């Protein structure tokens, strides 16, 4: 059997698997009856519906002809990696990782780290430009979030500010 629409095939697969997983998970809670719905009732119902919808989409992708096969296309690994990595780095630098004893570095260090890593996701990466951008973003964030909105952020590394 040939896949007629790649996009539909994989999205159908995704919906089926996720729906089944939610439905299976729901059975570990008390399902109850209609009149006395337990915490598992609604998720089980929805999980079943989602799995069913996914299966229909999956089936359609094998039957209904499309002009170009609707390919999913190449994955943009580079932006995907750097954007997500930059985001995670922000969390690590801002709050630290107590589980491995990594100290919190505070907002300013986190801004520099994130801006530099995220910038690498683009086609051209100019180090000097990125540093200037980091400085501007640090000043803006400090003014907006710390001074104006008074959000509770650790601003400097914990070993300096104590």
């Amino acid at each position, binding site marked *: 059997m040939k896949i007629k629409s790649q996009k539909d095939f994989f999205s159908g697969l995704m919906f089926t698997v*996720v729906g089944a997983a939610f439905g299976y998970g729901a059975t570990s809670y008390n399902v109850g*009856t209609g*009149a*006395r719905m337990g915490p*598992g009732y609604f998720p089980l119902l929805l999980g079943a519906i989602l799995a069913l919808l996914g299966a*229909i989409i999956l089936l359609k992708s094998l039957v209904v002809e499309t002009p170009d096969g609707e390919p999913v296309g*190449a994955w943009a690994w580079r*932006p995907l990696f750097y954007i997500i990595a930059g*985001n995670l780095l*922000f969390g690590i630098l801002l709050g630290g990782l107590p589980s491995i004893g990594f100290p919190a570095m505070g907002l300013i260090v986190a801004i520099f780290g994130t801006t530099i890593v995220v910038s690498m996701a683009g086609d051209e990466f100019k180090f000097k430009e990125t540093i200037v951008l980091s400085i501007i973003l640090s000043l803006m964030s400090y003014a907006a979030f710390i001074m104006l909105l008074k959000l509770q952020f650790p601003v400097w590394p914990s070993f300096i500010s104590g």
Partner: protein
Amino acid sequence: MDLINNLSLGFGVAFTFQNLIYGFIGCLLGTLIGVLPGIGPVATIAMLLPATYALPPIAALIMLAGIYYGAQYGGSTTAILVNLPGESSSVVTVIDGYQMARKGRAGPALAAAGLGSFFAGCVGTLILAAFAAPLTEVAFKFGPAEYFSLMILGLIGAVVLASGSLLKAVAMIVLGLLLGLVGTDVNSGVARFSFDIPELTDGIGFITIAMGVFGYGEIIANLSQPEDKREVFTGKVTGLFPTQEDFKNMIPAVLRGTAIGSMLGILPGGGALLAAFAAYTIEKKTKLRPGEVPFGQGNIRGVAAPESANNAGAQTSFIPLLTLGIPPNAVMALMVGAMTIHNIQPGPQVMTSNPELFWGLIASMWIGNAMLIILNLPLIGMWIKLLTVPYRWLFPAIVLFCAIGVYSTNNNTFDIWLVGAFGVIGYLFIKLGVEPAPLLLGFILGPMMEENLRRALLLSRGDWTVFVTRGLSASLLAAAAVLLIVVLLPSVKSKREEAFVEE
């Protein structure tokens, strides 16, 4: 008269110096972010939401209304100047607006969009104020079965108007509903799908989903496309004001657009989008005056009508939200989330228990619209400059502000890990061609639907026929069924697909 009394109460609340300032800042920030290419209103509001946390509820809602209008207007600006619709409802504005810009008439196009939107906004606010009270009366007649059926209608309405595959959109809603159930079940206290992670027992934050899926997902998708040289008309925006001839063409178009928008906006579902499409189609069908530019080549009516319809629809789509507590689209879903953060549960009880807030919000919508025109017509030059900021400076800033915003919601790094995960999921959605907006809508409605289903079935002792034996509930479900059938009819189906690929 009640209407006048209510409105004056509202304006009394909204017209304090402080609130006006918040409204102004909201508008400014909303436009500032909304005008950046590739950021739609959902991402804009999600990004700016944390900025309102520290404010008192009324000020926060006023600022949010400002952000909302600012973001929408910013979207039209990018549509006209860069040929990039920032949101689905400005897709039709692009057609004639961009052509006008290419002919050096970006100024009149932007002014037509702004003035048309302002007029439509004023009418929309009046309709909202007039309809809110009677509709709230109706809302008190609603039992859990009616609410459940209404939500079904709302969700179906939202997807039949979405572009792309209907089946996938429905699946996305269900997925959203499921994600909304993560966390502690209010009835039994059981932590569902939380994998023993303490942060997940409070549920997933809607900002986390919105920023991950709409913010990160789209940035990754944007970056994966080769950067084509976008044409931006910076130097050529001279002569801001439309000519007398333009006004003659514009005024009837604005009136028609406003009428269509106000009517369609009340419908549950993406009213604003449908309104813009319908308004453009009607303008296209009316006869051209002698000497008028044909449609598709820069006709000012092609900008004025959909923009007015869009704004009127955006305004009246607050009606189901404020009277019934049901968000009709993804942006309104965000507003619900924002209100709950400020301990306001939108719905009929807001108006009776908290009239200052309710009417203050309505008044602030009008103020938001007025701010927009005061702010934007003189500042158009500045917004255009913003469009020339290269994307390679923009996206690091967006990622950073998303990360800061997510962290500030709970002061918790766990949310940062979660938003990263949703970023990957958002990119996956784009690759698989599924639209994320229905997901967000389902996510907000999930707990509400479960609660109403539970109550309805408890009252009927587990009898599912309660949804069709109660008259009001049955007619709501029938309306949903009719909507689905109409969309699935072969002739309408091909028309619908045609409408979404047009141009």
